[in-house]
């Protein structure tokens, strides 16, 4: 199908975009980033914004920078740029790995980091990576810029803490320590499809015992979440098959999946357990 009618606005600065959004926020305005999720919804007429504010022309939102212990990524940075960036590969290798799982090259040429996180599909890769790493989101509204921890930003299915008159401007990912072992596991029916379930894990080891553990799961609840019960089981312990089994059971216990056309709730919980175990095993083998 074709989209319903809308008015197109094409700001060239962040301030201009925020001002336009503030002006039309109560009249069905929507921000257009890469459009790889929004435009299909518009073509199906599931989304019918009256005002479309295209931020693709705002060059100030396109960057990947190292800022101290953070990797700062501008909202309209293309996923393809993340895939090709040496800085991302060096400072946050997990981000490079998850990017390969997003759609296909042509989708990643347009899809943006900010758009992916602001859309907040529960099976999308960047919300999961942001949750695992402990990212922060910067949003700009008429009253200025605020910083939002990712766990507060991702509210529920396709819903974030963004106010109607705020634009996501930057995502800040903590730089990964060199000695951390990390892994990303995803199950999808076909390459490039949305994940059924995805799991990311990070392990920091100290003399053979787990000093710190992080596990994040996507596709098994309304938003990507940290499997803290499983993390607690691991801390201070030596990694054994039994321990990984226990951790994956705990991770499965924290899932709140729904059944849908792609998979039943039971299957998603099962996948969460299996992928947690695999991710932990792989993360452990890479930790040093």
């Amino acid at each position, binding site marked *: 199908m074709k989209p319903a009618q809308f008015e197109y606005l094409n700001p060239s600065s962040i301030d201009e975009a925020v001002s336009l959004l503030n002006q039309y926020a109560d009249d069905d305005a929507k921000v257009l980033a890469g459009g*790889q999720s929004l435009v299909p919804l518009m073509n199906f007429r599931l989304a019918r914004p009256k005002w479309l504010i295209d931020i693709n022309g705002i060059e100030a939102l396109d960057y990947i920078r190292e800022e101290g212990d953070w990797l700062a990524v501008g909202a309209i940075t293309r996923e393809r740029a993340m895939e090709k960036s040496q800085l991302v590969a060096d400072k946050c290798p997990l981000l490079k790995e998850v990017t390969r799982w997003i*759609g296909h*090259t042509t989708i990643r040429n347009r899809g943006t980091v900010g758009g992916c996180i602001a859309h907040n599909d529960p099976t999308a890769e960047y919300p999961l990576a942001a949750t695992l790493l402990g990212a922060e989101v910067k949003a700009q509204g008429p009253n200025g810029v605020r910083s939002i921890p990712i766990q507060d930003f991702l509210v529920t299915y396709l819903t974030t803490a963004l106010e109607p008159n705020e634009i996501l401007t930057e995502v800040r990912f903590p730089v990964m320590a060199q000695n951390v072992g990390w892994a990303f596991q995803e199950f999808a029916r076909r390459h490039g499809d949305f994940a059924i379930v995805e799991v990311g894990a990070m392990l920091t080891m100290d003399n053979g015992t787990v000093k710190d553990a992080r596990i994040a799961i996507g596709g098994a609840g309304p938003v990507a979440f940290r499997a803290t019960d499983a993390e607690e089981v691991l801390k201070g312990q030596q990694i054994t098959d039994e321990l990984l089994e226990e951790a994956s059971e705990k991770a499965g216990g924290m899932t709140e999946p729904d059944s849908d056309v792609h998979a039943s709730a039971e299957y998603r919980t099962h996948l969460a357990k299996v992928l947690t175990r695999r991710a932990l095993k792989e993360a452990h083998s890479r930790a040093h």
Partner: protein
Amino acid sequence: MPIKKVAVSMTINGEQHEGLVEPRKLLVDFIREEAGLTGTHIGCEHGVCGACTVIMEGETVRSCLTFAVQAEGKELWTVEGLAENGNLSPLQNAFWENHGLQCGFCTPGILMTAVELLRDNPSPTDREIREGISGNLCRCTGYKNIVKSIDAAAKKYQAGEKEPVVAKAWH
């Protein structure tokens, strides 16, 4: 209240095209209806099938997920831009020689995707070719010969043949 039409102009295959369009006009519809270039096909209209893939500013995009107004001032290449002086390009010849198409509906999108794939990776493995075209659906299920054709094109380039559009789209 009727929506105001917007003037857009863009370069497609080296030629200037202009039109007065509603902002909701998809780029693929502009290419087909305003520019009259019907080689680019419309399949699913929601970014899944890859039939509408074109090159914009040196990168493949789904022209069904892009509005014509977003292509204002941009440089595009479509399947019609592959051949030069009436001669099929090496990639097109490779498809011809290896039976890389059956009904041909997906072919324009596959060709444009393959141009970018081979530019980024001049000697792809079979697996890399398959991953590279994973976003393009062929419902004749002729993938085997499509992969073979792309591999054959890579070998033509390695033997010194040039894909004319590459020098034009990535300058």
